[in-house]
């Protein structure tokens, strides 16, 4: 049994050094996955590196019209930022579907990403929005699209000594809109059986000029379905375009078949939710400056 240590470093460099020093060290932000896994005995870290004492790790910053969300920022803090909520309501809503108020007061979207669950609610919304994550490590910082971080359930591309320091969202495009919905058997406090997120842009005439569709819980990782977005571009989001888009979504799904949802149900619902989020996102383009 390893001996557990707790560190709360004040700088990113110190955190990287502490993570490198012990292969079984784990970074701690909200702890809503990490502490559960420790208590269940699934993991036995040698050290907990609490990131919350590092400056800039908690809070939302403006960067070149876009947003940088510190890795330790709890989900509930995202909707307190009026500009972020106005710009990316789908991302903020997705983050605030996770768990309960108690959980969302601690849980972070960076943690949701790094936990690498295929059913993570915030990840399809972030992928659709074109979010990136800034990763600190022994070789300095690198920035990658969020979709490139998870590679399999519970596994990410983070190397030794690396951790996510912030999530970046681009400026919201003019006449852009985003949305996320999930399907669960209850109304709250459950894990997505299917999730779908979109971000799209319309021109002044209502034609779609760009669209990204991402789905969760229908493959080992969140999927960006490029064919689905492409099916909407150049259309006015009419019924034919939505049908083609939904078909592309269903074609990309390769879900597991379990008690939470049969594969055929997950696949069918991915198409349904994708249509719904496109409609919501299109409505939201009308209220964008």
């Amino acid at each position, binding site marked *: 049994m390893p001996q557990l240590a707790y560190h709360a470093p004040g700088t990113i460099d110190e955190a990287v050094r502490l993570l490198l020093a012990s292969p079984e060290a784990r970074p701690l932000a909200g702890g809503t996955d990490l502490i*559960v896994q420790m208590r269940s005995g699934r993991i036995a870290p040698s050290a907990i590196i609490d990131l919350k004492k590092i400056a800039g790790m908690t809070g939302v910053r403006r960067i070149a019209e876009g947003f940088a969300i510190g890795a330790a920022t709890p989900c509930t803090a995202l909707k307190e930022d009026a500009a972020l909520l106005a710009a990316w309501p789908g991302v903020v809503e997705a983050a605030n579907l996770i768990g*309960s108020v108690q959980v969302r007061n601690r849980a972070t979207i960076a943690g949701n990403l790094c936990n690498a669950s295929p059913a993570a609610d915030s990840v399809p919304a972030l992928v659709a929005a074109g979010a990136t994550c800034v990763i600190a490590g022994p070789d300095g910082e690198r920035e990658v699209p969020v979709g490139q971080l998870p590679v399999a359930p519970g596994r990410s591309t983070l190397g030794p000594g690396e951790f996510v320091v912030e999530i970046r969202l681009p400026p919201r495009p003019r006449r852009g809109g985003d949305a996320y919905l999930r399907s669960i058997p209850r109304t709250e406090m459950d894990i997505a059986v299917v999730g779908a997120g979109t971000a799209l842009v319309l021109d002044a005439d209502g034609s779609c000029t760009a669209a990204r569709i991402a789905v969760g819980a229908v493959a080992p990782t969140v999927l960006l379905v490029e064919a689905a977005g492409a099916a909407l571009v150049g259309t006015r989001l009419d019924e034919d375009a939505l049908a083609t888009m939904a078909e592309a979504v269903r074609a990309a799904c390769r879900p597991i078949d379990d008690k939470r949802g049969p594969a055929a149900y997950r696949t069918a619902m991915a198409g349904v939710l994708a249509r719904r989020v496109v409609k919501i996102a299109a409505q939201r383009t009308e209220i964008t400056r």
Partner: protein
Amino acid sequence: MNYPAMNKLVISATVNGDAESFLCDPGTTLLDALRTELGLTGTKEGCGSGDCGACTVMLDGAMVCSCLVLAAEAEGMAIHTIEGVAEGGALHPVQAKFLELGALQCGFCTPGFIVAAKALLERHPDPSETEIRYWLAGNLCRCTGYDKIIRAVIEAGAELRQERKAPELGTQDRQRLVSDPSDSTDRGALATIEDAALSDAAFEGEAAAAKVVGNEPHPTEIEP
């Protein structure tokens, strides 16, 4: 967590307004530290995985599951537990209404519900039934079926709003309730509050309106 008891940490925090220091292991949860180091056993462990809310406490003004917080993280922070909810001998209106309306049976989930409900009413003095149900979704009760809990929160909210108008009256009523729990308050007044705030038609109308966008209502605007 079964780690060897070594390298104890000294943690200093404010607990229910008092400065406290205690020793803990690096992996000790805030829940375990409150119960075993500080003797504050009002906060309960239900699931130990953040699903049930029995261990709800306020941490720097945010309600959290203390089973999912390491005690070490609380260094320098302000913690409020169920033990700090009543003021002296006077129950908080949420506590008084739980008693009066029988919003508990075994009582194990009750401290978490009361801390969470108080947090809601401090942010949102007049929540709808739907908003209360969403806010308390992270608190599980296996006895009551929730209805009495929701009614108690609605009525506590009404009492707190009333108290803001006539502060001295509410405290007297609760003082009386502590000394004589059988003494019931004015049923006529309760019926009026119920009619106004618990209207099924209003609740269904709200749910139906939310269904228009193909999603369940989610009162995100009221959370902290």
